[in-house]
């Protein structure tokens, strides 16, 4: 036992210098990288679960699309129904992994996993950005896998089209992830989060124009689509397709009052919503204990 008497000669400094201390920005970036990598590795470590998450949207595409394609006249949706359904299914695909970020925030908090992450010597906000970026990446990868099936609904594998669709999918993933995170921080139990989500996601999806044109909705419901981020995402996707594929189902577009919102503005609106949700989540996250 070493001498531990009070009043011993002042011992050496307790703090060992970390070798070649990196700058603060480098440290924050490394933490973000670690969190994104962790999500991707987790995804790879559970291939079955990842595959299962893709099954639901595929079922929608095959069953709903296959069943209704014969029934829905091309005039109603402006083209083949399965091609019409495709953007909506893309959004459905990214919603599950995006929402998982919120779920993980809650369960990790309950299990104590979150504390381990919070111990990292970086800003709290950085950790939240990292988690959201991880969820966004995961969701985008899933979206990309589904995008690979575009040929089955008659879409051409045109590089520019695929890239623009992928970019929109990434944006939608980001918005959904940020919203899920912002929601999850104020909620303590997974059950409440589940209930809230299933309550919110169903109308969001049905009022997005994913399954039927928004023009089919009664007027007052159609007004609601102006505040539905999914409607914007589906709309942007459909407009990209319409641009590249002659005779593809036309977009029904989001309206503000009587004004047709241009695609560029739809993208800006989505990005703004995502960023505000993210900042708000980061603010709340910084005050967690």
């Amino acid at each position, binding site marked *: *036992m*070493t001498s*531990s008497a*009070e009043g*011993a000669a*002042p*011992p*050496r*400094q*307790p*703090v*060992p*210098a*970390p*070798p070649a201390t*990196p700058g603060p920005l*480098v*440290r924050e970036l*490394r*933490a973000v*990288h*670690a*969190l994104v*990598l*962790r999500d991707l*590795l*987790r995804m790879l*470590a*559970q291939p079955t679960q990842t595959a299962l998450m893709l099954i639901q949207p595929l079922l929608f595409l095959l069953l709903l699309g296959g069943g209704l394609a014969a029934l829905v006249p091309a005039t109603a949706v402006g083209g083949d129904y399965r091609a019409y359904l495709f953007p909506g299914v893309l959004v459905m695909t990214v919603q599950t992994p995006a929402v998982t970020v919120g779920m993980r925030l809650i369960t990790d*908090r*309950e*299990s*104590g*996993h979150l*504390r*381990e*992450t*919070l*111990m*990292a*010597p*970086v*800003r709290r906000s950085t950790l939240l950005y990292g988690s959201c970026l991880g969820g966004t990446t995961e969701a985008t990868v899933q979206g990309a896998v589904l995008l690979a099936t575009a040929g089955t609904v008659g879409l051409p594998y045109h590089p520019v089209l695929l890239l623009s669709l992928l970019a929109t999918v990434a944006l939608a993933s980001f918005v959904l992830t940020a919203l899920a995170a912002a929601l999850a921080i104020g909620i*303590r139990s997974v059950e409440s989060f589940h209930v809230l989500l299933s309550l919110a996601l169903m109308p969001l999806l049905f009022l997005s124009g994913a399954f039927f044109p928004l023009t089919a909705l009664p007027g007052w419901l159609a007004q609601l689509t102006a505040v539905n981020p999914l409607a914007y995402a589906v709309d942007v996707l459909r407009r990209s397709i319409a641009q590249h594929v002659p005779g593809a189902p036309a977009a029904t577009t989001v309206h503000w009052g009587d004004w047709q919102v241009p695609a560029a503005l739809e993208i800006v609106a989505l990005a703004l919503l995502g960023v505000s949700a993210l900042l708000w989540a980061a603010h709340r996250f910084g005050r967690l*204990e």
Partner: protein
Amino acid sequence: MTGTGRHAGDVDEYAIYAHGLTKRYPGAEAVRGVDLHVHPGETFAFLGPNGAGKTTTIAMLCALARPTSGHARVAGADIRSQPQQVRRGVGLLFQHSAVDPDLSAERNLYLHARLYGLSHSRARARGATLLELTGLTARRRDRVRTLSGGLRRRLEIARALLHEPGVLFLDEPTVGLDPHARAQVWDHLARLRADQRTTVFVTTHYLEEAEHCDRIAILDRGRVVAHGTPAALKAAIGDDRVRVRTADDAAAAAALRQDLALRPAAGPDGLTVAVEAGARQIPRLCAALATRGVPVHAITLTEPTLDDVFFHHTGRSITHPGPPPGHGDGRQR
């Protein structure tokens, strides 16, 4: 590990310095004015029953929770104003396992190192070193899910050491482990202390584990009720314990009280007397009881244990706690 020439304030000669640390939750006061002075290189035990506020104190010292009042410096940084510096200087082993079960041991370490800002090559090198140090090299590719509790704990210790912290906090490091795995964890800690001069701050409610430590603070209901080396703490309550079993405890108690001016305490196993240099007192005890005609069945002599120390300061036994304290167990989410 070399010391740095960073500005040395009065309190920075300590690895951990806390003054009046207090944490209040709505309706409960988990920690009530804790003072700590832990020297660099020391192994310091925080001993207390569940709910004493150990975990909450650690959370404050690691800058995870903000103290309601009081202040502390850990690893040369202030826990309020420099939380990131504190976290860079400390490693923390959580009470509840928090490794990723689906990833390999190696990957877990790599990701953690990157989270702490280590470069790619450094993260790999440190990971390999620590796998070696904790004897996990052969299992490095295995999913953590397949590791036993003891191995997992060792992986967690390895993880806490990746960024070469000067102070290592271990919150109940051996809870839920079998005796063999527990002994191994302590072996590793002992080696760590010898090799790296890391300051180790460990909470436990196992008395025999506290015995390994240089110094101990006993925490009860959010307060430090005693601190010092295990030997000093035991010496402070003085005295050996002589347990006497007789045919008539009441008569024996009266005899000891009147003839020898002792203060016997009656228990289910007979009388217990605290006396100085117990071995030399036993003949006198026997003589006194014989004079009074009380037959003696057995006499045992024990040196004071930490449990006696704990009992002395809190009026309760840590191994057989009485009614639980009236507030939560100090753990927070």
